């Protein structure tokens, strides 16, 4: 399920981030086949049509794959930060950070939900969280 909010507006990164700041992750809906594509798609991933417009993602997803990036923690110590490929309920894949409130075992198809993170340096970013 998607809404038509934002239809026909220019699909720029700036506009995408503006939606994100309001808590909405935009996907592309194809006017010809109804298929869904990533927000920066130039053509429909399903049928190749260029008749695309943005629609708001429901925000639910499932886990496709995951890795743990070795990053520097606040004290400079190495930390493993989870990064995932998630498949939105609408179909498209999105790659990004998984925010865990506590260590958790991950499995293929684990339900996820989209969230918005306000990073003081990087700005507003999409992240995933466990859905339960």
């Amino acid at each position: 399920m998607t809404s038509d909010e934002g239809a026909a507006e220019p699909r720029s990164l700036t506009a995408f981030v503006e939606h994100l700041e309001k808590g909405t992750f935009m996907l592309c809906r194809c006017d010809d086949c109804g298929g869904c594509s990533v927000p920066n798609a130039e053509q429909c991933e399903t049928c190749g049509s260029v008749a695309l417009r943005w629609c708001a993602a429901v925000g639910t997803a499932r886990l496709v794959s995951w890795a743990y990036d070795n990053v520097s923690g606040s004290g400079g110590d190495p930390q493993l930060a989870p990064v995932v490929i998630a498949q939105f309920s609408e179909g498209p894949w999105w790659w990004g950070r998984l925010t865990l409130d506590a260590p958790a075992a991950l499995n293929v198809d684990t339900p996820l939900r989209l969230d918005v993170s306000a990073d003081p340096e990087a700005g507003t970013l999409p992240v995933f969280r466990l859905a339960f």
Partner: protein
Amino acid sequence: MSAGTRSPGTAIAGLGITDVGKIFGRSATHFAIDSVRRAIADAGLTTADIDGLLTSGGIAGNPPLGTLQAQLNLRHLKLAAEVQAYGSSAIQMVELASRSVAAGEASVVVCVWADAPLRAEQRSGSVYRQMRRGWNGLLHQTGIRSPTIQYALATRRHMQHFGTTEEQLGAIAVAQRAWAVLNPRAQMRTPITIEDYLAARWVADPLRLLDCCLVSNGAAAVVVTSCERAADGDQPPVRVLGWGQSHPGMRLRNNPDFGLVSGAAHSGAQALAMADVSLNEIDIFELYDCYTFTVLLTVEDYGLCEKGEGGAFVSSGVLGPGGKVALNTGGGQLSGYYLWGMTPLVEAVEQLRGQAGERQATHHDLAVVSGNGGVLEHHATLVLAA
């Protein structure tokens, strides 16, 4: 070994490689010029014989075609182009050169790849983590900040789907290091064990430091000409029997094959068919190995084992010196040096010429060379013969 009916009648007549590794103070263009001169001299030719130039490069960008042509004093070229499909570019350059020679357009084509990403004060891995703008910048900010992360996600998918284990990936790293010990050009020549592998730090779990390729400064070039002309050269000709390409695309898109099947499945079969040889006739496999996982996936996709059984295959003792399968006999990019697709190509040429020294494979009549570009986005295969 006779050539298949579709083989182009071309050969690699010259090979040039610079010093590789932490060689500072030289640009990619300087490395490229050096390697081209070495390749031309190796073939017993002069720059006046060259009428084709193909270039490719890495992080530092393609060595500029015009600059190279001017610096090498190459005049009236009949083929000149920059090629960029990342790790599959080296093979694609040999294919393009062979096509031009076979068509009677150019007669002697140099293919060169160069890069100089390392700086004396910079950690090797950091050169692949440069900040990006636009949508890729957004992904970068949300954790997709290096190719290693993306390959780690591909590797995890294979592990989940087929039960591939860390130890199986480690078997590739250990075997290739054993080959590198025998390669005087290799950057990493200290033997490692599976315990060493498991003790190595994570770069991006499930990939450890020893799953990841090196980063090198340097260049390599090959000279492609007709078999007839190569036969009159200074080196044993290495004949080009067949090639194949496959570019699945789907970068960062919904791709059910991601991490499970690569372009090698198509490009390998196509190259073998063109060469009119079967997989069990191949003596040497030089496979693109930006990560251990890339080797495992290519082994499956070429049909050395069944799909999903790559882990069991690589950990069965068939790899490494004395093993049943001569694979990445110079240590590859994991332990040898990282000149992208030129690393497996250079090793194949030296093996087929019988010039591989201590690491010379017992049988060296036929070799398969693979190239893999992007994050499993481009693949190319060559079949070469002594």
